[in-house]
């Protein structure tokens, strides 16, 4: 119930529709179940009529034939009304569901956009997407449609019980007392069977990850010459799956016939007892149809009863199906709810950076992704406008982390970053990011045209601007060769090489021309010759701008104004290339290693 409360705010605006749909559902159910009852009345009438016709000394109940016509008329009305009610209910059910999940999806997506990078980095991307797509689907099918089915099922059971007890309580008791047997049986079987299903699911998971791994490593499996071994391993899992799967399937297959057997027994018992009641003309257990037809329990009553009894089980099955889905849906709801309430990245700054970034100061920064390991350890650096600063050092020394702190994707544990002598925390993140442009190690291509990808940073960019940026990024060559040129739809997995992806990211930056530029291994996947051409464009771009460049290939940074050598999160050397090279320290060693 507590969990259900979470759904409540999302239901706003649909609450009236929900009440209406419940009303229509009830009406449809009543109509549906009234038909066998009234048809039973008709049969009673005819049966009685014939009995009297057979014995000419009796007079018939109704000579005019008015009653059957009236009943048929009522039946027709109920039939049409039931059909319409049912349609309205089925449609509003979907309408409500769609309206609710529409709202939830948008809200959840917004939460992802508002979340701090820290949260996104710490979550699995697939899991977040799963919540946004599959879990919300689950809530729609399991919870919203599930509740509709649940309500439908429960009202059907109640109304059926009402009609059955009105007809004859003895027969009704037979149904009510015997049906639980089939529920117990199916419950027992599925409980016993759940371990087989679990085994089946577990083996399926094993198979899946085995195949996934085999596919990912297909080349090395070939080159290691172990393809046959892998087929054998697969066969073992496959055999295990066959056995588990058979047990699970066979187990599940016994439920349906068992419940049908019990239903057939109930049916037979009803026929026997019902016939006994009619033959003996007693009124034990109720006199059947009321009003004008109070003839004692009669054939029409039995006929209606058989219909009710054969449909009595179905809602129970549906309700139990719904119960299963509900528990899935509840855990999905929980997952959605947690994601919606993930922390927000609050932009607590108020000031805007006026003009350009003149100074960027980092003082005694400390930072670690986890508490036990510092990645940035007492780091201080000042960058002035127009300076070209390079960060070098072995991988894992904290270069990328430093950029995360500068862009304020993460906050330092200790220490202070200031921009133009202003504490960075007081400045709007938006304003900071507005001044800084970056190309990161992890390239980013979204699904869209080449044009859209390059123009991403600059709203309203023209084609000629984009082409010019691509030209400067040395990307125009391969873009022109794409089937639709700048209109080609690309994505991360559309077959661009990692070098080409980097060039598009560079073009994005070239178009933006921000006054502070961060390049984190921006050219690591670009071949040396293209890189050389690109360097001229970079030189042009960086002229008069401030830049912070991270590179493995030291040749690209030798002409920097300042080279900062990092190790284990701290600066160990800094200076120009000549100074550092002459010093014969760590930088010298790194640099020389390139030529050995």
């Amino acid at each position: 119930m507590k969990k259900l409360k979470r759904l409540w705010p999302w239901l706003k605006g649909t609450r009236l529709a929900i009440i209406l749909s419940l009303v229509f559902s009830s009406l449809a159910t009543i109509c549906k179940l009234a038909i066998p009852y009234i048809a039973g009345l008709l049969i009673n009438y005819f049966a009685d009529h014939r009995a009297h016709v057979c014995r000419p000394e009796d007079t018939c109940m109704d000579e005019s034939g008015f009653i059957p016509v009236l009943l048929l008329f009522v039946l027709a009305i109920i039939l049409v009304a039931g059909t319409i009610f049912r349609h309205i209910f089925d449609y509003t059910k979907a309408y409500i569901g769609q309206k609710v999940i529409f709202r939830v999806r948008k809200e959840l997506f917004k939460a992802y956009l508002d979340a701090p990078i820290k949260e996104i980095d710490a979550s699995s991307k697939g899991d977040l997407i799963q919540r946004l797509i599959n879990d919300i689907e689950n809530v729609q099918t399991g919870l919203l449609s599930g509740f509709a089915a649940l309500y439908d099922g429960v009202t059907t059971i109640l109304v059926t019980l009402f009609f059955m007890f009105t007809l004859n309580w003895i027969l009704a008791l037979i149904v009510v007392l015997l049906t639980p047997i089939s529920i117990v049986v199916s419950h027992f079987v599925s409980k016993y069977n759940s371990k087989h299903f679990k085994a089946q699911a577990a083996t399926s998971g094993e198979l899946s990850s085995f195949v996934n791994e085999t596919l990912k490593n297909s080349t090395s499996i070939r080159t290691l010459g172990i393809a046959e071994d892998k087929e054998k391993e697969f066969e073992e899992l496959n055999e295990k799956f066959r056995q588990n799967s058979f047990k699970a399937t066979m187990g599940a297959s016994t439920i349906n016939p068992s419940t049908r057997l019990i239903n057939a027994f109930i049916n037979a018992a009803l026929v026997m007892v019902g016939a006994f009641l009619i033959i003996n003309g007693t009124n034990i257990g109720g006199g059947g149809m009321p009003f004008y037809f109070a003839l004692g329990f009669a054939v029409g009553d039995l006929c209606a009863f058989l219909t009710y009894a054969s449909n009595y089980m179905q809602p129970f099955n549906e309700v139990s199906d719904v119960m299963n889905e509900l528990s899935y849906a509840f855990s999905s709801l929980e997952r959605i709810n947690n994601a919606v309430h993930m922390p927000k990245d609050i932009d607590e700054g108020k000031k805007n950076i006026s003009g350009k970034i003149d100074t960027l100061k980092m003082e005694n920064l400390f930072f670690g992704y986890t508490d036990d390991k510092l990645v940035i350890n007492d780091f201080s650096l000042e960058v002035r406008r127009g300076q070209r600063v390079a960060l070098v050092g072995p991988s894992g020394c904290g270069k990328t982390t430093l950029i995360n702190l500068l862009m304020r994707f993460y906050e330092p544990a200790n220490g202070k970053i200031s921009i133009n002598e202003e504490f960075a925390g007081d400045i709007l993140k938006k304003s900071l990011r507005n001044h800084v442009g970056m190309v990161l190690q992890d390239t980013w291509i979204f699904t869209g045209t080449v044009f859209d990808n390059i123009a991403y940073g600059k709203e309203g960019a023209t084609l000629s601007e984009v082409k010019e940026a691509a030209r400067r990024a040395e990307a125009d060559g391969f873009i022109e060769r794409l089937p639709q040129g700048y209109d080609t739809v690309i994505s991360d997995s559309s077959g661009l090489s990692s070098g080409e992806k980097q060039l598009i990211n560079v073009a994005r930056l070239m178009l933006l021309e921000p006054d502070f530029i961060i390049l984190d291994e921006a050219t690591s996947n670009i071949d040396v010759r293209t890189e050389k051409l690109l360097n001229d464009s970079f030189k042009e771009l960086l002229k008069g701008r401030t830049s912070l460049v991270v590179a493995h290939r030291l040749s690209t940074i030798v002409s920097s104004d300042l080279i900062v050598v990092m190790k284990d999160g701290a600066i160990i050397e800094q200076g120009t290339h000549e100074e550092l090279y002459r010093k014969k320290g760590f930088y010298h060693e790194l640099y020389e290693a390139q030529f050995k």
Partner: protein
Amino acid sequence: MNSLKPLKKYRFKVFLAPTLKLFEVATELFSPFLVRYIIDEGVTKKDWNFTWMTSLILFGIAIFGFLFTMLAQYLSSRVACDYAHDLRKEVFHTVSSLSDKQLDSFGKEKILTIVNNDTFAMQNGVNMFMRLIFRPPFLFVGATIFAFTIDFRTGLIFVIALLLCALVIGRIMHSTNQKYSAIQSSLDEMTLVSNDVLSGARPVRAFEKEEYEEERFGKSVLTYRERSLSLASTNAWFNPLTFFFVNAALILIVAIGGFSELEDSPITIGEIVSLVSYLVSCLAAMVMFSRMIVSLSKALASKERIDSLLAMKGNIQNSGVISKDEEASGTKLIEFKDVSLTYGNKKGDKPAVSGLTFRIDQGETVGIIGGTGSGKSTAISLLLRLFEPTNGQIFYRGIPLYEYDLNALRKEISVVLQKPSIFKGSIRSNLLLAKKDATEDEMIKALKNALAYDYVSKYDDFLDHEVEEGGTNLSGGQKQRLLIARALLKGGDVLILDDSMSALDYLSDQKVRANISKIKGLTKIIVSQRASSLIDCDKILVFDNGHIIANGKHEELLKTCDVYREIFDIQKGGVK
């Protein structure tokens, strides 16, 4: 090959299933038939003896029906599971025989879905087909025949009601099918946008595009909602219309039956009751039947996917028989003669490499350098016979490569690929892939030579340290060192390092190369972006745009090859 082919083995059982179903349905139809007699002969004539005896038969046939059903259930579960097992085996076998290019062009994600979900969908499909598909039609036909034997009009009502229901169901399913795929594409679209935004969390924030992305997502959510509602408005007719037709038939039967009393052979009350109960079970069967068709059509989509996979044939066959012992060995180990490879098979597709001509002698160290996309890795793939050349010939130990036993070839050549390939398990299990019976000493030696011992020895559980799938708990450099160790452990006559030290710093790179050069008699092929890694090679091949433009020692190339000099100069940075 057809994905239903493995079913052939079980055809007897498959044909037995509908026969059993026929008996099962017969028992089901028999019960209302008896009820009719109980009412007409027993109840109406107040014959209690007849009534209770006939009622007992009802219990009996219920048990009979149960037995037939269970038999059918067993049969179909057995066949479905056995069949799916055979199918999966076949599918995996096909997958193993495909070349990398084929796997990539088919799509590995898709293959994964086929092996797991689609074969399971086929299992369920076969199971359902054998178990359930025959019951409703048998029931419809049986009930209709019964209705006709009673009265022509009631028979007609049955036929018309069932046909109308079938029509409605068919019509709705037809239009919902298309709508379902439209909805699926909306879902894919949403997944796409959210994937873009999550993987680009930094750029989205850096470029302040939050609102733009929200709008983009909003659009796809709206489309999804519209499409879903359009589906719902169709589906919302399903229940009401089937309900309408069946109940209209029921009312008509009661009316016609009731008013027939003055006719020559009136429809008895018992007949009316039994017709009503036939209609009720037909409606239930109809609903079930439509659900089944939906599930089966899903299985059909799976079948098509599996078929398309099974139809593929591996384009690398091991037809070679000659291996090392039989060959007339010289110093010439590998020779390419005017080799070219075009990946696509369309006209106008550019060859990835062409005119490759070079030779490698035993014990040589050969470097390969060139820009990205210049054809270095392609040349290596050709040598490993991961692809067949489009033109030209490759000789290995003086024998055409395709005549050389493929297993022997791959045993003799160890390779570290550009893309790290690590399996879930432990350091040990990953090493053992290269050599099943390696001793611990051998493993330690290989690790030491690859500089991997440094970090492996720091683990408390040493060689048994757990390695995640894809080696996600190892850094790039650690992975590469482990893979080099694996290749060294494998041994063989040729070692290929395909840009496999890129994540190592220059110092470690140099040390590993020094260790490897100590191994006697080993022919080494080193592909690298770093000119400095290749300085000591006996021979350096310079690749450019799919061609070899120069071939020689470092000093020679500096003098004669502009491209090489350029690469070297850029990396050196022009400063010393």
